[in-house]
């Protein structure tokens, strides 16, 4: 039995469905693919599948992946071809192969974020982030609600100049099983403080990293 990791992008129309929906989509795609997929042995046999880092609805990603198991050896090409036309628009497969890291190895994720609004206001957002010692937001999870300083969890902030009502910046956010920070928190902070439209912002996950921002291939 081989564990296989399929890497993919979630872009365009695919940003409008949730992580839960994505799981179902992949489940069906595997079923349709005709690949020798391994099923759990329980009373209700189901395909064993894991996703390392859930992506929020509305965000794009160029570094998604999921793992499943095959009962026979298959080449990358065979796997990708078998899945290719079974997916919704906006799910683009990029690679398939043996996993090289575990979900718990993920520590950081790099995002590109575009904000839209008045140039001057957008510049204000950027300046605020750079100059403020703390960007306090409320983080809610299933378990608890807490006040956090986003600056403690964001590094490598790099912004351009606002032009024609748009500003683009990249930053590396703490991610993974502990201290997972959703970049929407930062966008939400700007929206609340400066009145920009949070829903029009583009949030793109570009890459994920391990300990000390090491590249995870």
């Amino acid at each position: 039995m081989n564990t296989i990791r399929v890497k993919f992008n979630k872009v365009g129309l695919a940003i409008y469905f949730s992580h839960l929906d994505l799981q179902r989509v992949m489940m069906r795609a595997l079923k349709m693919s005709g690949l020798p997929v391994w099923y759990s042995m329980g009373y209700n046999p189901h395909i064993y599948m894991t996703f390392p880092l859930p992506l929020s609805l509305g965000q794009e990603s160029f570094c998604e992946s999921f793992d499943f198991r095959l009962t026979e050896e298959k080449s990358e090409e065979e796997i990708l071809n078998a899945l290719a036309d079974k997916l919704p628009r906006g799910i683009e497969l990029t690679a398939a192969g043996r996993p090289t890291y575990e979900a718990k190895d993920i520590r950081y994720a790099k995002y590109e974020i575009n904000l839209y609004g008045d140039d001057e206001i957008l510049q204000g957002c950027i300046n605020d982030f750079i100059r403020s010692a703390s960007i306090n937001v409320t983080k809610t999870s299933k378990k608890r609600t807490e006040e956090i300083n986003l600056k403690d969890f964001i590094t490598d902030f790099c912004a351009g100049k606002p032009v024609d009502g748009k500003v683009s910046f990249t930053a590396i956010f703490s991610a993974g099983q502990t201290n997972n920070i959703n970049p929407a928190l930062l966008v939400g902070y700007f929206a609340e403080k400066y009145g920009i439209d949070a829903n029009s912002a583009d949030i793109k996950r570009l890459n994920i990293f391990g300990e000390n921002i090491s590249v995870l291939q």
Partner: protein
Amino acid sequence: MIDNKLKSILLSVQKPARYTGGEPGCIIKNPDEVKVRFAFCFPDTYEVGMSHLGMKVLYETLNSQPDIWCERCFTPWLDMMQKMREHNIPLYTLESKTPLGEMDIIGFTLQYELSYTNVLAMLDLAGIPLMAKDRDESYPLIIAGGPCTCNAEPMADFFDVMVLGEGEVADTILCNVYADCKSKGLSKLETLKELSKLEGVYVPSFYEFEYGSDGIITEVRPLYNAPIPCNKAIIKDFAHLPALENTVVPVIGAVHDRAMVEVLRGCIRGCRFCQAGFIYRPFRERDIDLINSSARQLCKNTGYEEVSLTSLSTSDHPQLEELLDKMEPWTQREKVNIALPSLRIDNFSESLIEKTTKVRKSGLTFAPEAGTQRLRDIINKNVTEEEIEKTAKLAFAGGYSHVKLYFMMGLPGETMEDIKGIADTAQKIIDIYYSMPNRPKGKVEVSISVASFVPKPFTPFQFFGQNDLELIKKKQDYLLECCKSNKKIKVSYSDANTSLLEAVFARGDRRLAKVIAHAYKNGAVFDGWYESFDWQLWVQSFADCGVDMHFYANRFREYDEINPWDHINYGVTKQFLIEDYKRSQQAITSKPCNKQCYNCGANKLLGRACFEYNKG
């Protein structure tokens, strides 16, 4: 394309993927290479519409034509509706995001009376005038199909064309004739005249109604040689009608999210309350090899883990067991569950349970419909007490511990004894559970779901006046009283106001259009959803328009009265309906169609007898 404005809106509403399309199986064509652009509109939410087999079938059928591109559109939920209005975004098709106004044909399916205001909301959101008479050639042709068109008079003023009966073939022909008229540059009136010559096409504006001083119709006058009666369209060779092998698979799920194959059409049973049992006559079954291969292909193409063998009464397929045997090897191997949604108590067998519960076990639902034998005979639900008991035993022995029972109240000839009979039936099933030494572990639960009876056109009960609200309330209270002592019986019933409104529209006429439009303008929408159904708004709308609900719902219709649907021919004759209603009054049952023919008239649609009665 989704621009920044739409994106921002989508991310501010619930379940945005309802409005984006792009699902696996979704069909994209080049608009420059097709002659007809068709928007198939389902007047309810995405999740409801995407559960509907008819829509899936027509989507694939129309798109199998290279000249036609059929796209989908659903009613935006209240949050999206509000946002679209605020931002002036016209309602668009999911596939290409084209505003509905740019389509050639907009087709609505009328499945349910309380989705009528959603039709108006969709036209309105698209910026299209509601009334057919207010739309010239610059607007798309607005058409309707689905079961409600058998009496869609309440909606007649809003539509240019209605398709009666089975749309699989009729819709394609309609599209082709429309394309032809368009290329010739015909006016709307000339186009409608051409379309009215087609089988199953009803042009409402070609029929004029006269009413007497008592409000009852005195005459229906066809114009421009429109056919009277207007016949429904029918598929004569249903046995070999190709079944779905591909379909759009919703990413966000649907209410019924599974592969579906229609195994038979029509019904042999003749339950007197059931409109579907009459308007889909005659009974025709599909070839089992065709069903088997289509089901397999459909599961392969969609990845669904469950295939439903749908119909009005699946266990009436003469070769059902043989079909299940044929399906067993591949469904087992590919871990596909077979669902049989419409089983009858009287032919539910042990081997059926075994064959359908091999992969996964689900709940079991039966519909005795009435609580006593006398009333079941009146409604011609030919199910006996013993059969109900036998089935309950089989179900419990087969491992089920939850049983759901469907009943109706307000049936013709019903007394309080019959209401008590509902509770007694449920109690008996619980007693059976405890009497069984091999009963499944866990808690037994019997849910009884009680709907208020709505008399429908083209049924023997079309003459019957619905119980008024007061009487229904009394019956509901009495039922609760009867079940109060037993916590293992769960009772739920439908909202009586909703049923009254359904009854008004079901047997309504053209004069209701103004009420529907008025109610819509005052905020009525999604009336089939309890979160948005506003009874007082409807009461006020009827009052404002000076229309009496009781005239439509609660009045007995004399046999010689001209009903709003009498000029429509669904095969079943009025004479037969009268005879069968009279039989019901004496609690005389009718045998299933395959045992005895009562000359309902539906066989004339086929041009042959429905069954070979002398065989064996």
